[in-house]
């Protein structure tokens, strides 16, 4: 499989201060990538550089093997064949839905144009709104028009800038799934920018996690969740608690919690380590020996999310079925499924 998009040590600077430094990654044809990170991590700058709206200070961006951005050369945005769905959709308010979608199509053959517009409207399920204007549409409909408009000229890659930030949270997860299915169906290579890990998980084949303008980790959603490479990744992705705990040379955790495998803990030296415990690592078990004190309890429908205090005062989260209903102050019997735990050495 060829790489559709390649970034090679890209740096983007504003007034000499770099917002993005040394970012490299490649996106295979047909994949959906995601730039994930907190606000201000430079992910939108990267997207804009790919679209041709920001110059790069160092490095190179290429599309299907053709270089489109270097410090010396920048192909004009209109020549890149990069589709973009803007954060606020940026629909043209003076054009109808069909004219918005047809905006990027060649003037040539009117029949072809009409056919392509109809095809796009079908794709996003807006065939009945063809003559309406953007202000007459709901937020979700506007987003689908923006998507259809960007896809109509058959771009080499589709960029989506925080595509769900303008929608209410109930619609988000639903739409993310719909759009992923739609992009996969049309075999479009896409790159999404978001600060929301749920969106990233729902949409992406590959996530590029950014922190302070640098790549923190690249991997599938599952890899990032289960094997975060850095403390930042562990903290930013997924719920969970980082606790400090003692370990002996054989890998046995303090207080008889269990034993880590050598793959989890390659260093094999006794001392204090940092351990990431996701809520699904701490499991409710009636027969377990550990009784931890309940300090907080949140009802989540199917589950209760408990915060449990360790004897030394650190807390861990535990996701238990909602019929396990213990009052705050009581204790909860738990065991630790340590094969899902992640070790960060050099604990305090």
């Amino acid at each position, binding site marked *: 499989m060829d790489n559709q998009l390649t970034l090679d040590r890209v740096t983007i600077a504003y007034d000499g201060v770099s917002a993005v430094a040394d970012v490299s990654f490649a996106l295979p044809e047909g994949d959906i990538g995601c730039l994930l990170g907190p606000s201000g991590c430079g992910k939108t700058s990267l997207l804009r550089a790919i679209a*041709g709206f920001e110059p790069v200070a160092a490095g190179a961006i290429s599309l299907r093997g053709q270089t489109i951005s270097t410090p010396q050369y920048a192909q004009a945005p*209109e020549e890149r064949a990069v589709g973009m769905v803007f954060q*606020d959709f940026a629909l043209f308010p*003076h054009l109808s839905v069909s004219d918005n979608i047809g905006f*990027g199509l060649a003037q040539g053959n009117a029949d072809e144009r009409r056919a392509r517009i109809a095809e796009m409207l079908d794709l996003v399920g807006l065939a009945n709104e063809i003559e309406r204007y953007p202000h007459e549409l709901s937020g979700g409909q506007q987003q689908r028009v923006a998507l259809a408009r960007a896809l109509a*000229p058959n771009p080499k890659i589709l960029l989506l800038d925080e595509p769900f930030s303008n929608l209410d949270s109930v619609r988000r997860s639903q739409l993310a799934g719909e759009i992923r299915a739609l992009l996969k169906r049309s075999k479009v290579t896409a790159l999404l920018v978001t600060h929301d890990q749920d969106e990233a998980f729902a949409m992406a084949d590959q996530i590029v996690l950014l922190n302070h303008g640098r790549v923190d980790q690249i991997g599938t959603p599952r890899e990032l969740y289960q094997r975060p490479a850095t403390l930042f990744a562990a903290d930013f992705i997924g719920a969970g608690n980082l606790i400090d705990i003692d370990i002996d040379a054989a890998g046995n955790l303090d207080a008889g919690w269990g034993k880590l495998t050598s793959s989890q803990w390659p260093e094999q030296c006794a001392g204090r380590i940092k351990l990431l415990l996701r809520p699904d690592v701490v499991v409710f078990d009636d027969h377990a020996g550990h009784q931890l004190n309940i300090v907080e309890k949140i009802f989540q429908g199917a589950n209760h999310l408990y915060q449990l205090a360790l004897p030394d005062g650190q807390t861990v989260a535990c996701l238990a079925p909602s019929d396990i209903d213990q009052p705050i102050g009581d204790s909860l019997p738990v065991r630790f499924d340590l094969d899902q735990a992640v070790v960060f050495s050099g604990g305090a």
Partner: protein
Amino acid sequence: MEITTHAAIAPRDSRQRPSWRNLATLVTALLALPVLVILSSLLQPFSAAWQHLYSTVLGDYVANSLLLVAGVGVGTLLLGVSAAWLTALCEFPGRKLLSWALLLPMAMPAYIIAYTYTGLLDLTGPMQSGLRQVFGWSYGDYYFPEIRSLGGAICMLSLVLYPYVYLLARVAFAGQSEAILEASRNLGKGPWQSFFWVSLPMARPAIAAGLSLALMETLADYGTVAYFGVSTFTTGIFRTWYGLDELTTAAQLCALLLLFVFALILLERESRRRLRFHQSTVRGTPKLLVLRGWRAPLASVFGTAIVVLGFVLPALQLVYWAASRWRYNFNRDFGELLFNSFTLATAAAIACLLVALLLAYTKRRFNARRERSQVEIANLGYAVPGTVIAVGIMAPAGWLDQQIDTLSSAWFNYPTGLLLSGTVGILLFAYVVRFLSVSLQSVESGLTAIKPNIDESARSLGASPLQVLGRIHLPLLRPSLLTALLLVFVDVLKELPTTLILRPFNFNTLAVRTYELASDERLVDAALPALAIVATALLPVLLIIRTMLHERRPHG
């Protein structure tokens, strides 16, 4: 609790409601009277004078008015849109300074700029004298465009009316977020294509709204076309009125002119309606296009040239003239002119404000269809040319005077003469009809900022309705009220045709005196009163500039 409060309020309301509501309706009916009188003149028989007009000059009136409107339309569009686009979306030296300086020509009434350019470009003016001296020509040796012509009038009006287009187009361009233009680039359109396919169409309703305002002023203009000897509707109405003494025919001409005005009103309404949909909800301000090479100085020169031609040059000419005859003209008579004008303008501003408050408050309080349409009707006055209003008032006032005089003579054997016609009261009424909308828009925009729940919270904290007015509304409204007073004050000061027709005998204002002196070819003497008008007219322009600069500051 709910029930008792309502019960306590209800009886008082039912007592108050009819009186205020009916007063507002009565006032609106009075305001609509002049236009209704004009329209009803169409039902009267067309006299022999009309036949004469029809076969001789009416064609000229229509053709010249249309040519004038078309010419000023093209002129204000070219100047206004290009200046707005440059200052809102491009970066070049002097952009910030020009973006507000381009509003200065608003302070220059069209008839005054016409006088100054006549002085500059006439046969004996410095321009032609200089040419003759330098090249050794004498009169007739060379071609020089005649300023006192239809083309000249188009240039003069375009130079001072383009700010309407500029102001609205600029807001529209500046509000176009960068993302919209980027979306266009992203979809394969270059910068110029993006301008013509996206920027310009998105700004079109704003441009059309500004254009319709400029064209309304063009149709209403009397001073410029009269001075340049161009036969248009307004000069025709004056001629029919004073020359032929044909009141009905003049009114019928006015009615015809109103048809053109209504077309412009429709254009403006439609544009403003569409304006709401053309505003994108996308956040962010546009990134400025940095002009490079020869383009940047060209943009600076272009903008500067407009400001110099539309304001600086005529203003300097006025100052020069006024200074040259300062000792001779700065005297008691000038003091009287100032006093007359300022008193009249102050009285009109207060009258407009009171009526505006009545209409705006009844609309806010009852907000029924009746109140809303009253405000709509009152707002139409700004579109009606002053000449039309004057004729529409003259006719019923004359008729009423005559009736009173007849009755009085018959019953008391005491002829009253003209009680209403030629009084300051009638003149003030005409100003209210014409300029009320200026007040009303100010007051209404201030009032909409005070949400009804503010009243309710004040009432629930124990304030009486009067206290709500004094402690909440007045402080919040003060800027709007002052703006309303200032705008009407200046409009009245600049106003020419209405004052010319309706003023009391021998009652002179700055505008009328300027016009008379210029008509007598005493341009140099006309400069002092003209300068007084321009200086005062600068005040509201400065107010707009201040608002504009304040709005620019936030958003980095």
